[in-house]
């Protein structure tokens, strides 16, 4: 349908270059395997489906059940906690490291090469390594005999959230550092030269030039971080050997347990929709809030 109308439009603007059809393969993939699943999730949220028989239509039954369930509310709060903590931990570190690695000193280049190493490790590998390190009986802390290190990192349900925030920071700070590094390198050197002539010290330069110049980078990085935090699954799943406890049952984990352990796929689909809506709202909110209304708008200026 869209394509028919589009054909009419192309006729007029044809000279502009390639036909819009060139975007069709990508669009087809995206619609079939990303947009359609969203609609199917919506459909499944109105059914009871145990993954074994066929889905049975139950109307709105699942929605009040899931939204009113204290387990869901707790999962939602835990998810928000992990989003906020991850942002608070990762953003300053990535920003500072981005500025740090943007410097041209040789030692910084060497450090940067090592900083980015976690990028190449899979979540499963990272989780397995930290599970081994943090094991209360056979791990690093136990072997060194240091009482501080020998906490029940993964078992203590009040502690595990922070452990996960740390591991996720370990994994993703390199990625965001990279983004900030690129951002910092695009700040015109003339700005700093002028500031130096005015006698601004390094700290003042950071606050009055670097930070404001990085505002779009901060929005981009924060958006990716927040939407990403909504789907942290791999690390938690492997870290807890597939049976996460209540202290780390964030929404994606809750969705998995509800769907694949309790076999209530309909209720799990409600959680899936919740995740998508929350992601959308947060991302749009972030861009609105920062006056960064259209991702395309500033690209046009370039």
């Amino acid at each position, binding site marked *: 349908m869209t394509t028919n109308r589009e*054909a009419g439009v*192309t*006729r*007029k*603007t*044809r*000279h*502009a270059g390639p*036909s819009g*059809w*060139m975007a*069709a*393969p990508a669009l*087809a*993939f995206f619609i079939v395997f990303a947009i359609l699943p969203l609609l199917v999730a919506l459909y499944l949220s109105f059914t009871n489906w*145990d*993954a*074994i*028989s066929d889905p049975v239509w139950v109307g709105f039954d699942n929605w009040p059940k899931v939204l009113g369930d204290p*387990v869901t509310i707790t999962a939602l709060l835990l998810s928000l906690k992990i989003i906020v903590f991850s942002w608070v931990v990762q953003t300053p570190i990535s920003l500072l490291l981005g500025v740090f690695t943007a410097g041209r000193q040789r030692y910084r280049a060497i450090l940067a090469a090592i900083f980015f190493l976690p990028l190449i490790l899979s979540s499963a590998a990272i989780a397995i390594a930290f599970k081994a390190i*943090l*094991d*209360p*009986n*056979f791990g690093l802390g136990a072997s060194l005999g240091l009482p501080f290190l020998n*906490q*029940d*990192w*993964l*078992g*203590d*349900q009040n502690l595990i959230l922070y452990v996960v925030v740390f591991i996720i920071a370990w994994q993703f700070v390199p990625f965001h550092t990279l983004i900030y590094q690129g951002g910092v390198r695009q700040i015109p050197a003339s700005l700093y030269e002028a500031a130096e002539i005015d006698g601004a010290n390094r700290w003042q330069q950071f606050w009055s030039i670097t930070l404001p110049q990085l505002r779009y980078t901060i929005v981009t990085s924060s958006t990716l971080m927040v939407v990403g935090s909504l789907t942290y699954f791999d690390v938690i799943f492997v870290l*807890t*050997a*597939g*049976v996460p*406890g*209540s*202290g780390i*049952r964030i929404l994606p984990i809750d969705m998995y*347990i*509800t769907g*694949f*352990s*309790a*076999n*209530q796929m309909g209720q799990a689909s409600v959680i899936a929709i919740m995740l998508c809506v929350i992601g959308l709202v947060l991302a749009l909110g972030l861009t609105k809030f920062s006056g960064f209304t259209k991702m395309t708008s500033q690209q*046009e200026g370039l």
Partner: protein
Amino acid sequence: MKLHSTRDGAGLSRRTRRLTNAVLAIGAVSLLLGVTACSSSGSTGGGANASLWGLTGGDQDQVEAPSLKEWNAANPKLKIDSNYFANDAYKTKIRTAVGAGSSPTIIYSWAGGTLNSYVKAGKVVDLTAATNGIKSKFLPSVFGQGVVDGKTYAVPMNAVTPIMFYYNKKVLAKANIDAPKTWDDILADVPKLKAVGVAPFSLAGGSKWPELMWEEYLVDRVAGPDAFNAVMAGKAGSWSDPGIIQANTMIQQLVDAGGFVKGFSSVTADSNADVALLYTGKAAMMLQGAWVYGTFNTQAAAFVKSGLGYTTFPAVDGGKGDPNDIVGNPSGYFSVSSAATKAQQKAAIAYLTKGVFDKAYTDRMIKSSQVPPIQGIDSQISAGGDFGTSVYNLTKAAPNFQMSWDQALPPAQATALLTNLDQLFNKQITPQQFSDNMNKTIGQ
């Protein structure tokens, strides 16, 4: 933004070209879809051999793998391919596989609620006729678990595995105590063991289901089998049974006393870390299934000979339950997938009726100190070793053999049970809250 000047009067050749482009683009997508699908799905489903998934562990090495090897050598036309998974990994995989219609031909289960849902959805084959001839060789109570609505859908394939009370003899000797006989003994032993720097109990709390073993035994000892029978019957409010609340209070009492190894919530059973705690002497005692005896044998054979002790769960003074009652898995079961081809089903049924628990299978199981659910093998078992004899005697003497709750209950309730139990062990909820939460799940 760039301005585009518009021109009209499209030349025919242009229009055709645009059309060609469109066709090309669509063609490219379908081609790619086709290529990717073909490149990878070649070996799905239609594989000639029947397939079987088992669990990793002692049984795999000592019973199942050798049996299948012999079977395949003797029956080249009825070959069966096998794969083995860790317990928790298997549980998450198998249901999705069955639901998606790509399960192995032979489906392993613990019967109970899971088997019921397979039967309800028509995912497993009716084996009543095929098993008529072999029915009589099994212990009736064990065979009966595979029967749903009068028809047989699952055949026992594994040992009788009650939950056993294991202990490290050397560690108990160091603390100068004997294996506890009552709950009060346990409470008295905890400080003594801690004084010598050993954790009283190993527990794979990270996997959650080992915590259920404590719950099952304590509820039985305190309130008898009726408390859980009411839950199974779906009676409203049945989780509020005073016996259940008392048992949960006792659990938290033991947690408070430091009865379980430090960090038990991050110890996982899939990695056998709980077993390792016992044989490395870091913990003194452990409640676990009879199946871990095989793990002890493979990982610490010397310890099994000199240091491993085992008995039944201690009695609770004043409790209603018989101290001889046991809980655990009556057996493991094999079903045949209805999604498999006729040839695969034929091979699978042949193996289930002729290969499983043939003489060699039974002998191997006895040799590895396990108890087959087979009638009239008393003398063989006593020749097979002390552990098997103990299990066999416990099983024979038990007035009630309760199937593990997480297998007996439907999946939704079982999942909620493990979640709440974990919170109970971690002292995040009180016994009263546990009962309230669980009452809400009845009927799900």
